[in-house]
């Protein structure tokens, strides 16, 4: 039987080239393309409505070519991914950002990391290397030494917005609250935002490079450090990669418990957002019940794993150790009362006109942006786009679950509130069901360190996280992460204009994007 996705591809890719493709250990179709065929295939992918979920570079991926660009595409409705491989003879390539706008940041990232230029790209400014890095420094090249000190680059040029009465408000990187660092530049007329430009990567820690040379056992710690409140999702994605490379099948109990942790993470992460949104419209009475519930969940986390942020629990091959039976029983006894009180807390928000007045119609993300910017998670579901990695590219136990994504229509703050509120309850229900039929047995199996590479997608609380791992002789030669926040941040530049400045914190909180997870 011909794979339906393969058949679909045959309409766009010349048959001779399709024969050169292979199936990866992750189930994706890897297709090397000669440069003269690349443009045509990209045009075909645009027409077919594919989504560019990731684009990254690896040095030494294949014999005979120094740099390989990997374009990871998704055709909505198909579980398998398509990865176009584009070998580069020299340090430059043509841009695809005009066809796939999400590529703009991907390409700028590649330029910084590897020194590969995209001369026809829409934005040639550096991305994660700020002015403190010297010119010609490209940290992800294999031969790159540490940057020399005291060699500052020219200042970063923000976009100019001019006109009568237009003024700018620069904010950050150090903010007024206890928030992560980032820079926001508002161009404002009166009280209304005309344009917003964001500059990120103040927290760039070089995680991808640090992971190189480590074993996958060590590497999972770096996955956890990507974004503290998404540590279960990111460590799961990392382990999925390692397990796919090794062909490891997890014991049933490990699968179940991992899923419990993943859904707990979604719950406490969403609760923080729901509380933060109420705080940002100056309604602490509405925020407090959510904060109380979240603290209780953090304590459940600690009882289960020893960490309030579920750190150290998930390892290649399963879990580091079994979760205490008393703690699991306590969680099962606790959740029904949690749900009851959560419903009350959400009602408290819904029945308060001053809150609804601020939430409704504020910070609208348009549905048309979801595909071109590769938006995912609650932001996408709040504008009626039926995507959820757990259902679309199921991993672990989700394949057997048949989840229905929770949708809203309006794409505003209120819609994001509702999606997250429903997801908290849905996650609690999932956990209760899992706890009821928790299988016995081991929680860890051997995950051999084999040579190979694999992609994995997971649905973190903020949306889809893409991980790519390449192992050679027992160590990591390339680790690439593209979190949901990396793409979703770009939605805020579209959602804020037209709103008043005081609504920015609210819009920002309703999206609750991770700075650490973007900056890596």
């Amino acid at each position, binding site marked *: 039987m011909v794979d339906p996705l393969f058949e679909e591809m045959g309409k766009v890719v010349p048959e001779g080239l399709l024969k050169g493709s292979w199936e990866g250990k992750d189930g994706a179709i890897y297709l090397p393309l000669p440069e003269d065929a690349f443009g045509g295939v990209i045009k075909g992918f645009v027409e077919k409505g594919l989504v560019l979920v990731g684009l990254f570079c690896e040095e030494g991926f294949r014999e005979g070519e120094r740099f390989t660009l990997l374009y990871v595409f998704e055709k909505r409705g198909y579980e398998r991914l398509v990865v176009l491989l584009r070998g580069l003879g020299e340090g430059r390539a043509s841009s695809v950002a005009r066809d796939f706008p999400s590529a703009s940041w991907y390409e700028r990232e590649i330029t910084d990391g590897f020194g590969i230029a995209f001369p026809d790209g829409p934005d040639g400014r550096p991305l994660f290397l700020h002015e403190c890095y010297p010119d010609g420094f490209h940290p992800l090249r294999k031969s790159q030494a540490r940057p020399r000190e005291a060699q500052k680059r020219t200042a970063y040029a923000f976009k100019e917005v001019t006109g009568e009465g237009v003024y700018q408000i620069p904010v950050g990187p150090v903010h007024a609250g206890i928030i992560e660092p980032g820079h926001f530049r508002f161009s404002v007329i009166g009280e209304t935002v005309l344009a917003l430009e964001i500059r990120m990567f103040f927290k760039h820690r070089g995680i991808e490079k640090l992971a190189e040379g480590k074993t996958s056992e060590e590497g999972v710690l770096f996955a956890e450090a990507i974004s503290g*409140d998404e540590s279960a999702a990111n460590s799961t994605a990392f382990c999925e990669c390692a397990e796919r490379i090794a062909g490891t099948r997890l014991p049933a109990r490990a699968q179940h418990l991992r899923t419990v942790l993943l859904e707990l993470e979604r719950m406490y992460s969403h609760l923080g957002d729901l509380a933060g949104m109420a705080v940002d419209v100056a309604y602490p009475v509405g925020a407090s019940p959510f904060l109380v519930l979240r603290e209780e969940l953090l304590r459940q986390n600690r009882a289960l794993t020893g960490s309030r942020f579920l750190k150290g629990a998930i390892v290649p091959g399963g879990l580091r150790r079994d979760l205490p039976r008393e703690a699991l029983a306590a969680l099962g006894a606790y959740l029904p009362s949690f749900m009851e009180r959560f419903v009350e807390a959400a009602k408290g928000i819904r029945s308060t006109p001053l809150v609804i007045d601020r939430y409704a119609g504020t910070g609208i993300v348009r549905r048309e942006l979801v595909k071109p910017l590769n938006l995912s998670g609650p932001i996408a579901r709040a504008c009626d786009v039926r995507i959820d990695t757990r259902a679309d590219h199921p991993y672990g136990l989700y394949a057997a679950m048949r989840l229905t994504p929770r949708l809203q229509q309006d794409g505003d703050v209120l819609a994001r509130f509702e999606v997250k509120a429903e997801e908290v309850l849905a996650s609690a229900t999932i956990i209760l069901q899992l706890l009821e039929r928790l299988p016995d047995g081991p929680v860890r199996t051997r995950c051999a360190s084999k040579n190979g590479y694999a992609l994995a997608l997971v649905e973190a609380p903020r949306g889809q996280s893409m991980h790519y791992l390449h192992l050679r002789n027992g160590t990591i030669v390339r680790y690439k992460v593209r979190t949901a926040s990396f793409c979703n941040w770009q939605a805020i530049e579209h959602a804020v204009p037209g709103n008043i400045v005081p609504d920015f914190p609210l819009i920002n909180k309703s999206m609750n994007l991770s700075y650490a997870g973007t900056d890596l």
Partner: protein
Amino acid sequence: MKDAVKNLLGRKIAGDAAVPTDRTDEEFERLGHELRKEVSSIFGRSLAIREVDTGSDNSPEIELNNLTTPHYDIERFGVSFVASPRHADALAVTGPVTRNMADALRRTYDATPAPKLVIAIGDDACDGGLLKGSYAVLGGVDKVLPVDLKIPGNPPTPEEIMRGLLRLMAAIRDRKATQHKHR
């Protein structure tokens, strides 16, 4: 009105059998009262902290924010988180110092009126932690600023942060006593 009556007469959260009880709140309360005494005598009733994130994984921020939530509410013990370094007695720095944040950290420190304290919160802030040796990271906070207190942890819990603040108070008291002796 109905809600208010229900709240007054209804079942209290702490009394709900299904809600896990542990000693965290009592212990925090005990530490808090101790801290309040120290803050009163050393800082004249209030200690103002400005937080700066220089590259954390965001979990230390969540715990610092938690200090102001209903379970903890650190303000009742005289500690507040302020919006500007100009209002601060102390900087609480989280994360290793990334190259991209070093300048902003120095400028925040310069904007803080002296005498000022620097507290490094979390393993990464203490010595670079897992991120040690990265091209993008200068190291712990003490690579850039004089650090008065390190609170390790991945991240430290609210309770551990409280204990850290108490250690800081004790250190200041000692320092004052020594200075006094040498005068």
